[in-house]
């Protein structure tokens, strides 16, 4: 039985003892990675593998809101091959839009294939650390999502939110502790990051979730622009 979750356009289904997250497939019949497709009535749903997607695991870990809804324009930094991007694209549907940026030509290649299939994704090969280099390729966004494994990921996040996020827009930030400092305890790094975010006069931290056990040494901050 497919049920609506508390988030727009995100569904779930009971499968044995576990619940599975789903999004409505924007391009019926097509898989993006090796997820399963579930047909129900006239709609087709795609399984959202929470072990592969940090946004998915944040939802399962009980985030109360993610600020993502139909019609949103999303700036996605660190899109990689487009696993999570495809679900974001499902959620915002064709009335919204996703700017998907990544740094490595190897993975953006996959992203181009994804964008050719879906009408609401623009692939961008660019460096998230330098917003001025891709400012001419995007518009303002309702939501900024960042998942990059860089040492100064917090500053990059703040810079991009300042440049591209609308007022009162949501910003989701995945922190990978291991790429900040391998020798420190992840939780110390998360707390440090939180301090930096709160001290900036750009964002307020709404929520904080650690993503264990789905993503080791990762956490997600859900912020709102002042």
């Amino acid at each position, binding site marked *: 039985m497919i049920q609506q979750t508390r988030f727009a356009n995100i569904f779930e289904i009971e499968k044995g003892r576990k619940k599975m997250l789903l999004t409505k497939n924007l391009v019926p019949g097509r898989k993006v990675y090796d997820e399963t497709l579930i047909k129900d009535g006239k709609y087709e749903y795609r399984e959202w593998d929470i072990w592969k997607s940090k946004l998915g695991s944040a939802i399962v870990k009980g985030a109360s809101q993610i600020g993502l809804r139909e019609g949103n324009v999303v700036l996605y930094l660190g899109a990689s091959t487009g696993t999570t991007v495809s679900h974001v694209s499902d959620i915002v549907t064709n009335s919204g839009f996703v700017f998907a940026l990544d740094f490595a030509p190897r993975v953006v290649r996959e992203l181009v294939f994804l964008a050719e299939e879906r009408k609401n994704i623009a692939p961008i090969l660019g460096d998230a650390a330098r917003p001025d280099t891709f400012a001419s*390729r995007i*518009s303002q966004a309702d939501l900024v999502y960042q998942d990059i494994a860089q040492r100064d990921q917090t500053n990059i996040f703040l810079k991009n939110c300042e440049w591209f996020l609308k007022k009162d827009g949501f910003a989701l930030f995945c922190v990978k502790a291991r790429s900040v400092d391998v020798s420190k305890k992840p939780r110390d790094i998360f707390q440090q990051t939180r301090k930096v975010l709160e001290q900036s006069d750009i964002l307020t931290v709404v929520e904080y979730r650690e993503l264990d056990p789905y993503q080791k040494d990762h956490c997600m901050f859900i912020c709102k622009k002042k």
Partner: protein
Amino acid sequence: MSKNFVFTSMVGSFILDEKLNIVSKGQEKSLAGKHDAVPLPKEKIKDFLGMLKRSDYFSDFRNRNIDLTKDQIRKSATQDLLIVQAIETIDDVNVTINTLSKRFREWFELYCPEFSRAVQDHARFVELVSQKSRNDLLSDIGIRPDLTMGGQFGQEDIDAMMQFAKHLKELQSLKTEEEKYVEKAMKKICPNVTAIAGSLLGAKLLSHAGSLEKFSEMPSSTIQLLGAEKALFRHRKTGARPPKHGVIVQHNYFTKIKSKNYGKLARMLADKISIAAKVDFFKGEFIGEKLRIQIENRLEGYG
């Protein structure tokens, strides 16, 4: 007259007045002639980007970003990446050759165990076996053919085994071919690194770095430890003894010196290689020979 701004985005060029209202929109060149406008300052770009957040621009954003990104990807396939692929292929083929050679020996030993023991080198073994008959092989190593421990094989059984040997030989020649390619390409792309480290080791370092650009940005201390990441992070996490060298230790020079000097030589070699990599990336003059002589002069003290 009040001052106008110009901002060029993917979806077109815009002439804006001081309050950022759109005065005119079109191609950059035709607009520049008509209006006397200054480029939009950075801090105002973010205000204007909100005006572009409209669904009628979406398809332009998408199509032009796809085109531009495709172009960028096309240009990103440089020759240093080809070297990286080739050297990683060589590594993989090497592993495969070893596995298959061991399998082939197991098989062949049912037929002629004495000969397999006599020739240790895989490449030579496969070469000889596929050329000569069992009787010739045995008399070559001085054993009477009728005293072999090997079983009786029909022609069909031998053919199946030899088919395997043929493909194994092809794999070996594939490896040498690719090595030749790497050597040629390395001499062209990284002449300085090749002069110091040799083409294969140079290519291995390059593949650990990912690309020539990243390689040239590396400090020598990083180059020294390329390939020793596991040991390095163990040291960082637990305080175990730090590694002295990574793949760099495969260099010929290390066979000539005392093992207590390995750390010193690794440090020095990495130093010179990092200089060479920078010269190679920025296409400077050839200084590889000079660097190599500097290393060799120091080498005598390490013997």
